[in-house]
């Protein structure tokens, strides 16, 4: 099987689980969860320094959840809410000492114009060209605004950004974003923070199979099986935050997500069996006790032959209790 490394923009990541960092006020807990997840890339939001004075205009998901975690000397922000963590610790400290890369986002932006300035600030502050581009339509759904998103993608690509475009599960828009130069396309499974899983697996699979850039399932994951499903559908990676940070046991859930992503990718590569509506025995029918003479090697009347899928009723298999009465044109079927 191919290497498990995920290559994005020439950078090799050993984990296909990308973590958000919002939703946990306890930085020590966040660090343990990040380590348990095995992630090598995490998103962060860009906000005013020392938000004891308020978070400003950004009222998106990250904005509502944001906890001030910037480097500080610990003396001028006594109102910091994360009392459980060391006052000298910081999100930066955690990410640096664990060698976790940073993906700044544009959460809370409603227009391409806002997103451009936020992206520029993120690039300057964190010294990376990577940006998770998030342009939302409204506060209630937090759904991506496709028009503004495409516009912002074109402009950011022109300015040299590597755009990770958070988008809807629309396969057409995903292709537009790729053509506009997006480095990765990140369709949602369900609206941010809902934990509804993957609402349209068909679309996600279609996006994944047509894309020539990495596809990251972003948002909506609630539990491990859904992360595995994303990978089984052909996604290259999964990005999640709330499913871990708001779980009752974030560290355990982070570990579950790590295994789920690995399991889903393995299953995808292994090639699943076809779906059937009819049972197919995995033990031989021949040689059962109490069935009379059984000549070795000659399966009687196709008993060892899988009967195939619905619709399969035919006159010659009338012994099956599930067989319906033969239709009037009972001339055709042979098993």
């Amino acid at each position, binding site marked *: 099987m191919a290497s498990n490394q995920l290559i994005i923009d020439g950078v090799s990541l050993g984990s296909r689980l990308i973590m*958000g*960092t*919002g*939703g*946990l006020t306890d930085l020590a807990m*966040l660090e343990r969860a990040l380590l348990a997840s095995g992630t090598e890339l995490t*998103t*962060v*939001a*860009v*906000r*005013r*320094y*020392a*938000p004891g*004075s*308020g978070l*400003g205009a950004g009222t998106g*998901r*990250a*904005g509502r*959840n*944001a*906890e*001030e*975690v*910037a*480097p*500080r*000397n610990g*003396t*001028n922000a006594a109102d910091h809410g994360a009392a459980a963590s060391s006052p000298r610790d910081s*999100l*930066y400290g955690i990410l*640096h000492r664990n060698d976790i890369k*940073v993906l*700044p*986002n544009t*959460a809370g932006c409603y227009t391409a114009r806002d997103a451009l*300035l936020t992206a*520029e*600030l*993120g*690039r*300057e*502050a*964190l010294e990376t060209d990577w940006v998770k581009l998030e342009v939302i339509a409204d506060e209630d759904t937090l759904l991506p605004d496709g028009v503004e998103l495409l516009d912002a993608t074109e402009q950011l690509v022109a300015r040299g950004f590597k755009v990770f475009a958070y988008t809807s599960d629309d396969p057409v828009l995903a292709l537009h974003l790729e053509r506009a130069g997006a480095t990765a396309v990140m369709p949602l499974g369900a609206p*941010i923070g809902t934990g509804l899983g993957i609402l349209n697996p068909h679309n996600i699979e279609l996006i994944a199979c047509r894309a020539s850039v990495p596809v990251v399932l972003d*948002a909506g994951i609630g539990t491990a099986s859904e992360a595995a499903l994303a990978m089984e559908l052909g996604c290259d990676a999964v990005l999640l*935050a*709330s499913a871990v940070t708001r779980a009752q046991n974030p560290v355990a859930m982070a570990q579950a997500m790590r295994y789920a992503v690995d399991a889903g990718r393995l299953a995808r590569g292994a090639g699943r069996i076809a779906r059937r509506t009819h049972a197919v025995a995995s033990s031989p029918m021949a040689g059962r006790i109490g069935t009379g003479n059984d000549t070795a090697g000659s399966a009687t009347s196709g008993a060892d032959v899988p009967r195939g899928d619905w619709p399969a009723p035919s006159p010659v298999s009338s012994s099956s209790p599930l067989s319906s009465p033969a239709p009037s044109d009972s001339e055709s079927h042979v098993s």
Partner: protein
Amino acid sequence: MNTAPQDTILVNGNPVPLTEGLSVADAVADLTGRDITAAGRAADGKPLGIAVALDHAVIPRARWSDTMLEANQTVEIVTAVQGG
């Protein structure tokens, strides 16, 4: 002159008195409590993780120390916080 209102700038939405020769680097140092080098980095050598927008335009860190603030300008000083 002693009755003239003090010139101010807006730093992260808060009015701040504008002192003579106040640079962007000074504003960052005042807000963060950290010393800033001429290159726009933390003097303690640790990551600073700060970006500045002056009237909605990003000022690269290398220009912080020679960019002087003027009355009524809007300064946004941002950093990374937890988020999705």
